[in-house]
């Protein structure tokens, strides 16, 4: 078999496809009702979920900073919540920007620019998730220290430090247990690995086009 024979074989396949039964309206309509499982749709859905969560978190943190429900006396006690709020605001801005700008018109983009855009968005989305995870972790740890002044006022110093240490230990244990029990692993790790592999494939395809 040579290239010409291959072409002839392809044309036979094409002829077979041309005479396939027409798709009925009901079938096409049912397809349009399905939720998209495309890469972009998934990123946008994930961004939308994060946006809702961030907005709720922002309202909650705003309430803590404005209402002082823990009777904080010193400004530094607010630092963990302040850091978290600043991070949440930045995340909201970034998510809104992503939702507004990642509206790719498939009609207007060729394969190369589409690959580049998708890669950029995948990376941005992953960076955001990683960054927010680190932020939650650090804020969780720092929060234990916010309650230290009140403890020092009411208890012996050793007791106050011991309780703070215990709080830190409990926080770390919860994070560790959650990690070990697969709270992150089962649901996300396989997905992260797939994402990473997919991203590598996209990168090599994009490089393949760019290098010519």
């Amino acid at each position, binding site marked *: *078999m*040579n*290239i010409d*024979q*291959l*072409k002839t*074989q*392809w*044309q*036979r*396949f*094409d002829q*077979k*496809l*041309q005479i*396939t039964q*027409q*798709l*009925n*309206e009901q*079938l*096409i309509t*049912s*397809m*349009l009702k*399905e939720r*998209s*499982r*495309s*890469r*972009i749709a*998934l990123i946008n859905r994930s961004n939308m979920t994060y946006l809702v969560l961030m907005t709720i978190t922002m309202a909650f943190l705003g309430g803590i900073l404005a209402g002082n429900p823990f009777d904080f006396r010193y400004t530094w006690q607010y630092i963990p919540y302040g850091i978290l709020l600043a991070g949440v605001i930045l995340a909201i801005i970034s998510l809104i920007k992503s939702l507004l700008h990642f509206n790719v*018109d*498939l*009609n*207007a*983009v*060729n*394969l*190369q*620019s*589409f*690959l580049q855009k*998708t890669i950029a968005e995948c990376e941005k989305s992953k960076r955001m998730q990683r960054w927010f995870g680190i932020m939650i972790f650090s804020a969780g740890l720092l929060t234990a220290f916010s309650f230290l002044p009140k403890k020092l006022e009411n208890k012996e110093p050793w007791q106050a430090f011991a309780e703070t240490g215990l709080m830190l230990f409990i926080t770390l244990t919860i994070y560790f247990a959650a990690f070990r029990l697969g709270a992150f692993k089962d649901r996300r790790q396989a997905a992260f690995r797939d994402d990473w592999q*997919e991203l590598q*494939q*996209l990168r090599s*395809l994009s490089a*393949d*086009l760019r290098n*010519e």
Partner: protein
Amino acid sequence: MEKAFMDMVNSNRALIFKVCSLYCDDQEDRKDLFQEIVLQLWRSFPHFRGQSSAGTWIYKVALNTAISNFRKETRKPGSKPLTTAELEIPDITSTRGDQENNDVLKQAIGRLNNIEKAIILLYLDEKSYEEMSEIIGISISNVGVKINRIKNKLSNLIKTY
């Protein structure tokens, strides 16, 4: 708009079938990809103003979807889409003619990477270099270079069967 869209999809269904056959081995995957392509076409349909031919537009959307925009998710039990029962996308190996040639064609194309598949699809469908350049996003001269390389690769692959 719906009627015009359905007519357009129907008259170009063979083109979408070819993309699905090229990128998916499994019948269920082909159906899923077909559905995703139709969905993406519908979403970009309002922006299609006929600057390029309907074929070029469909190729763009279908290849973008097949290569970088399609991610297989495990479907929950009971959420089987309606399309699976009613849609049948022929496989290359079921084509009339020499079965051995069908197998060679399928296996040889299967050994190409996703970009090479896209280019060879356009070449086999006798698209002009200009159209290929517009769909893929590389220069016309690079289209020629790419096609020659893929043809050589295919020739070598065919020889091994």
